[in-house]
């Protein structure tokens, strides 16, 4: 079986979500190529050539691919699809934007966000924000799949390139859409969906001012910051901090929930975290049912103590 992986990269760097996508692909395919698309992506292609599972790195470096417009990239991938049985991308906003468009061009039903491969045509994917796991069989000749990066190990890399790098000269110019710009969030903290440690705050923080306590704890741990919907609705933090069914789904190594009671909505977004710590003054709070470690106490006492213990 031949597979094509669509690499995600930012500013010449291969995105961390690409490596687990390669290992998911390797469970289905014996021959694997990776496609790096961009305006300037040669360095990312060089990094991709280090994955030991790959045969070829295809590099579509062209100004028409500026800003990763799905229209142009999907057309390119659909043109290449003839040679492949499987097409994979990470289930990041990049992959989710692009692959369904590819699938529709190929008249294929894409399989989103897989967390396990059961067989060559059967995959497991979360539904209802992870409250259920659906086992799905695909009848399409070609499979178009996005991979949940937190569910697969990172593919192995060699010290020197093992795959051949092959430049593609294709140019696809859609005149219907244009890239205007990318405003990256301040990079002083890790991004929520790929962070290894997350500190989240809830309504019990009481105010935006008090939420700074969460920031201090996060900075001590080098963690990303999350929030419950209640904290977002109360205006303590912006919407993009929200972890939960209608917010971001996260699965870090360590998730610290501070002053979060644990509404179903929130639990759905974080219960696949490896270790969950809950700090809450209500011993009956549902968050304790999913937490590995709980501290029953006032967060305004416990969190400063935790910061000072961690700083030691």
């Amino acid at each position, binding site marked *: 079986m031949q597979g094509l992986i669509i690499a995600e990269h930012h500013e010449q760097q291969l995105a961390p979500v690409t490596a687990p996508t390669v290992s998911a692909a390797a469970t289905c395919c014996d021959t694997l190529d990776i496609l790096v698309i961009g305006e300037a992506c040669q360095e990312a292609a060089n990094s991709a050539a280090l994955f030991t599972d790959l045969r070829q790195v295809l590099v579509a470096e062209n100004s028409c691919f500026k800003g990763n417009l799905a229209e142009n990239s999907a057309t390119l991938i659909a043109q290449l699809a003839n040679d492949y049985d499987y097409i994979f991308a990470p289930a990041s906003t990049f992959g989710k934007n692009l692959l369904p468009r590819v699938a529709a061009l190929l008249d294929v039903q894409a399989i989103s966000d897989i967390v396990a491969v059961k067989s060559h045509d059967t995959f497991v994917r979360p539904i209802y924000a992870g409250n259920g796991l659906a086992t799905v069989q695909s*009848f399409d000749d070609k499979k178009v799949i996005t991979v949940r990066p937190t569910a697969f190990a990172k593919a192995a890399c060699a010290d020197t390139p093992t795959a051949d790098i092959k430049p593609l000269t294709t140019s696809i110019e859609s005149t219907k859409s244009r890239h205007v710009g990318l405003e990256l969030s301040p990079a002083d903290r890790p991004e929520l969906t790929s962070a290894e440690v997350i500190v989240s705050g809830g309504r019990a923080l009481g105010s935006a001012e008090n939420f700074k306590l969460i920031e201090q704890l996060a900075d001590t741990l080098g963690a990303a910051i999350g929030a419950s919907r209640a904290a977002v609705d109360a205006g303590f933090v912006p919407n993009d901090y929200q972890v939960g069914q209608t917010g971001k789904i996260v699965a870090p190594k*360590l998730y610290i929930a501070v002053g979060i009671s644990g509404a179903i909505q929130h639990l759905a977004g974080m219960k*696949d975290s490896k270790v969950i710590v809950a700090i809450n003054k209500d011993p009956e709070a549902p968050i304790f049912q999913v937490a590995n470690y709980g501290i029953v106490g006032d967060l305004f006492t416990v969190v400063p103590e935790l910061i000072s*213990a961690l700083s030691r």
Partner: protein
Amino acid sequence: MKCLVSVKRVIDPYVNVRFKADGSGAETQNVKMAMNPFDEIAIEEGIRLKEQGIISEVVAISIGESVCQETLRHALALGADKAILVETGNKLEPLHVAKILKAVIDKETFDLVIMGKQAIDDDNNQCGQMLAALLDWPQATFASKIEINANKAQVSREVDGGIDIIECDLPAVITTDLRLNEPRYATLPNIMKAKSKPLDTFTLDSLGVTLRDHVKVLSVDEPPVRESGIIVESVAELVSSLKDKEGVI
């Protein structure tokens, strides 16, 4: 300028979802249903564009059994001008939904389609992108801001790590993210008014759509339950467990 907004009937997001023991899926009998939250945001955006004078008509569409009329009446009560129900008892895949929407758009001209980025039941996040591909229209997914000017839409998109801004010509498909707006509530007079707004019904046959199954859901299971943890007495005990036992800090 006319805008089509798709709305899906799903289990209310605040209900604890239960799965049938035979693995056939979620239990929906006697369960509170609601409009998919991302679709509420899509309807709200359509109504706001109308209030700004950019759009002249907001049409809500739903696909499914006749009970989806309730979801459409809710859209009408929020401010949609008319509704379309494509009535079918089929289990629909995202590609099916995209094909049905395309058939409706081929019959009746629209300048803009606004859809929720995903439905909170199947979590596929595919329909908008697929519809754009089938129509050969540009797509702007995960929108947190939409500005329409001179037949062009400038859309801020919520992507991992920041905001991506694109401009696309209309017609286009836009999918909504959480930050786009805060949906209004339907007022009682508007709920009453919605009852007399037009609601057209189509079938797959009347639209000339034929579909084949691309996937089969073999089973739906609950994920393994987390083992309950322990209550620690002190911060020191917590830190030493996280360091020495778990190795996560």
